């Protein structure tokens, strides 16, 4: 149909439906969000807003099986390779042991521009990932599985193999043969599917080679200098494809008004077809003001709305709304205690143990660390900040990992024990001299601030000579302070990149991990254990290793466990069919293909296998 005629029809139908007071804009899903996509090119997308759009536009070779975080189903591939079906084969060469994983590629799949999906596209996708390595981007996960857990960037690969060696290795990493694509992994096969190949790891989505090259992306040319030519910068728009996506997914980009809204429309040639009820359009609005967003949601001008938890009380009981809650999020936070702080740091004041500051290695004293642990009131935090929708954490591994979590509370809120340890610290000197310390947080989030204030209030109540204060820094001042290691106590958060304990244990506990690197307590023995976790294939062994590492961390009292929150999402009662997977639940990412709008229907699809506590309520 001519576009204008189509628009007019939709308009009339929409107006008509409105006139009947039924469901406004029945073919359009309208989402009210507070942030928006940075890029629509999978190769450099690392934020959840981009992820939500990409989830509709592109696809991966595999997808998670329903209600599972460990099983997969074929998607753009036609089989899930395993040792059993012979598509996974182990091998060894002079570099090391490797795993060959072969995917047969599905036929009859089309990209939005009409091109057919073929194995060459898959090869191109992953070679491009390895060659352009966007700064600050997600491809470190690709290097982890292709080359090993010690490889996090293109620079690491070039350092190890040299220019020519690296080029050869990258080309060998993905090869086409007939209708199949074979991956050669020197890194752990156990992390391959979860971190790169499923429907939620958007950095592994398949792009169209011909389209990409025509539009200015890397031309699959290895006659370049790796790490210099075609290396992508940190900007969202560093990729020429960032606003002209072309995927195999059910929806394609209709219009992107930067910072305002993204409109996706139905791709008629989608390989899975369009039987059943679906929405034709998905519009994501960026509405930063809560009261405005809320009024629109209540008036029915938004179908799904992001509701900050602290305001949820304003919506409870509103007619026409549905809320789903009680599902554990794939993320948590912790208060890091940092050793060997920058001696010039403004936060440690005098820098001496003289009652007017703290020494840079204040956190080296285990009694100090334990005292801080006992001073954090996780229950009050959960109750007042999360409105009860959180449980105190055991460790830095969120409870969604079930048996891998060391499920014993080692500390907890106990002011007597906190005092006991403060008295013991520095052989009693600390108690007599007192100390002065500034706790810092990054402005913009009440949760961060309150966590620091709880510590401040509780610790100060023990001894009048303990002088703490809490200061908030803008991100722009926080970043340099972080870079120059000025903070001694710092609340950090981590959202899962992929569902595997390694993704949490490594950053928090490995000496080179994102957080432990800053804290400075890592040890080679623990590092070795953590590497094993990445490589483990047996579940029991995995759990045992995880317990051992967590025990080490808890006994050492390095990072104060906070709370494991459960999520909550809101939608209008006429939204039907939405469901969550563990990846995506915390950010509210969902597949629009399964959603439709109608007065009657199944509502939100609760998944009590993945989320035992999930429940729904509507008015």
């Amino acid at each position, binding site marked *: 149909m001519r576009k204008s005629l189509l628009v007019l029809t939709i308009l009339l139908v929409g107006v008509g439906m409105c006139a009947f007071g039924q469901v406004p804009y029945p073919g359009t899903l309208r989402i009210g969000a507070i942030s928006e996509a940075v890029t629509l090119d999978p190769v450099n997308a690392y934020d959840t807003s981009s992820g939500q759009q990409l989830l509709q536009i592109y696809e991966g070779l595999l997808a998670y099986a329903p209600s599972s975080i460990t099983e997969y189903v074929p998607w753009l591939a036609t089989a899930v390779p395993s040792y059993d079906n012979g598509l996974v084969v182990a091998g060894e060469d002079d570099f090391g042991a490797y795993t060959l994983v072969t995917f047969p590629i599905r036929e009859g799949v089309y990209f939005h521009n009409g091109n057919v999906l073929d194995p060459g596209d898959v090869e191109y996708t992953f070679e491009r990932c390895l060659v352009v390595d966007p700064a600050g981007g997600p491809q470190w996960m690709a290097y982890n599985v292709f080359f090993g857990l010690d490889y996090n960037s293109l620079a690491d690969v070039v350092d190890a193999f040299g220019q020519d060696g690296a080029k050869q290795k990258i080309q060998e990493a993905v090869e086409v043969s007939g209708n199949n694509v074979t991956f050669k992994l020197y890194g752990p096969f156990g992390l391959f599917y979860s971190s790169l190949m499923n429907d939620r790891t958007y950095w592994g989505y398949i792009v169209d080679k011909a389209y990409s090259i025509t539009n200015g992306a890397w031309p699959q040319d290895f006659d370049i200098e790796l790490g210099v030519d075609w290396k992508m910068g940190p900007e969202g728009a560093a990729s020429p494809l960032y606003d002209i996506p072309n995927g195999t997914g059910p929806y394609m980009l209709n219009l992107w008004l930067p910072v305002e809204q993204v409109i996706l429309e139905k791709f008629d040639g989608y390989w899975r077809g369009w039987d059943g009820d679906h929405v034709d359009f998905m519009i994501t609005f960026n509405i930063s003001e809560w009261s405005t967003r809320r009024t629109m949601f209540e008036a029915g001008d938004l179908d799904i709305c992001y509701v900050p938890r*602290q305001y949820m009380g304003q*919506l409870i009981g509103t007619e026409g709304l549905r809320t789903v809650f009680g599902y554990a999020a794939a993320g948590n936070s912790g208060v890091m205690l940092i050793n060997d702080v920058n001696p010039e740091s403004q936060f440690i004041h005098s820098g001496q143990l003289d009652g007017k500051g703290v020494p840079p290695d204040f956190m080296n004293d285990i009694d100090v660390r334990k005292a801080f642990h006992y001073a954090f009131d996780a229950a009050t*935090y959960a109750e007042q900040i999360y409105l009860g929708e959180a449980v105190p954490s055991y460790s830095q591994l969120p409870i969604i990992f079930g048996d891998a979590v060391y499920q014993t509370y080692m500390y907890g809120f106990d002011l007597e024990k906190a005092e006991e340890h403060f008295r013991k610290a520095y052989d009693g000197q600390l108690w007599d001299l007192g100390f002065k310390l500034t706790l810092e947080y990054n*402005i913009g989030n009440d949760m961060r601030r309150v966590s620091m204030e*709880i510590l401040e209030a509780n610790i100060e109540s023990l001894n009048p000579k303990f002088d703490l204060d809490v200061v*908030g820094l*803008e991100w722009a001042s926080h970043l340099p302070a972080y870079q120059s290691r000025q903070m001694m106590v710092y609340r950090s958060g981590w959202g899962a990149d992929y569902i595997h304990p390694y993704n949490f244990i490594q950053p928090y506990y490995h000496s080179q991990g994102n957080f432990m690197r800053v804290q400075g307590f890592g040890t080679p023995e623990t590092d070795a254990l953590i590497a094993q976790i990445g490589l483990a294939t047996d579940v029991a062994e995995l759990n045992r290793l995880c317990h051992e590492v967590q025990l080490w961390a808890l006994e050492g009292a390095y990072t104060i466990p906070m709370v494991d929150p459960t999520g909550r999402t809101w939608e209008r009662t006429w939204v039907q069919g939405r469901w969550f997977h563990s990846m995506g639940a915390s950010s509210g990412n969902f597949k629009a293909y399964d959603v439709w709008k109608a007065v009657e229907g199944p509502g939100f699809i609760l998944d009590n296998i993945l989320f035992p506590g999930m429940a729904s309520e509507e008015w």
Partner: protein
Amino acid sequence: MLKILKKLLTRPLSVAGFLLLFAFIVIAVIAPWIAPPQFEHEPYRIPRDGYWAEPKPPSAKHILGTAEGQYDIFYGVVWGTRTAFRVGIIVTLSGCLIGMVIGSIAAYYGGLIDELLMRIVDIFYTLPFLVAAMVLTVVLGRSLENSMIALICFTWMGYARVLRSEILRIKELDYAQAARAVGANNFRILLRHIIPNAMYPIFVMVSMNIGSMVIAVSTLSFLGLGAEIGYADWGQMISLARNWMLGSAGNATAYWFTVVCPGIPIVLFVLSWNLVGDALRDVLDPRMRGTR
């Protein structure tokens, strides 16, 4: 003098303005007694009763209720009076002084100096205020003092331009020409004749601005700058109300106190300064004398 006082005290709006202002001064002075500080060295830090986000309505413990984050509104309103005076007076008078100096120099000398100074005024007008405020916040930390500095840097221009245009206008008027004819020196003319007569629009501006500095700070709070969170400042308190203003499901006025309790002092404060400014101008302006 008595005549002036009499005039001031007979007009109803003028009396209202002065009374209001007086009431605010009283509250500011007795603040430590009616709202004793919880933190000895930080009287402007509002005491918090817990960490809940949801504001609690007025009760025996919190006479005016609590704002988002459980900050006591009564405390904030009382100590916020001091903040309002501080911010209003310091920022407005500093800005006014700077502006008047620059404006009169420009008008007095004319020519190239005038051009140069007016271009500097243009430059400051064009300078995005928020950038300056943001940079200050990043470099020096988020505080009321830094916001005041940023505000001073961006309010002086109005005074400069208005004063300059008034001076230019008056220069041509009869009595200025007469004084010149008599041989009085230019500078003297400027100081004794022109400026005092050019002050009236300035009066209006000052009286508007002292009051509205509170609002400027609330705009900054809205954008994430302004005073530290939990600082006793009306603008900030009203900014805290923004996510609760529309109440809860079925009860739109559930959180009325978060808006009304800081809002009324703001409105009355601005009103009082305006009325006082108007009254003073009406009474002191020689051209107004002899009128009804």
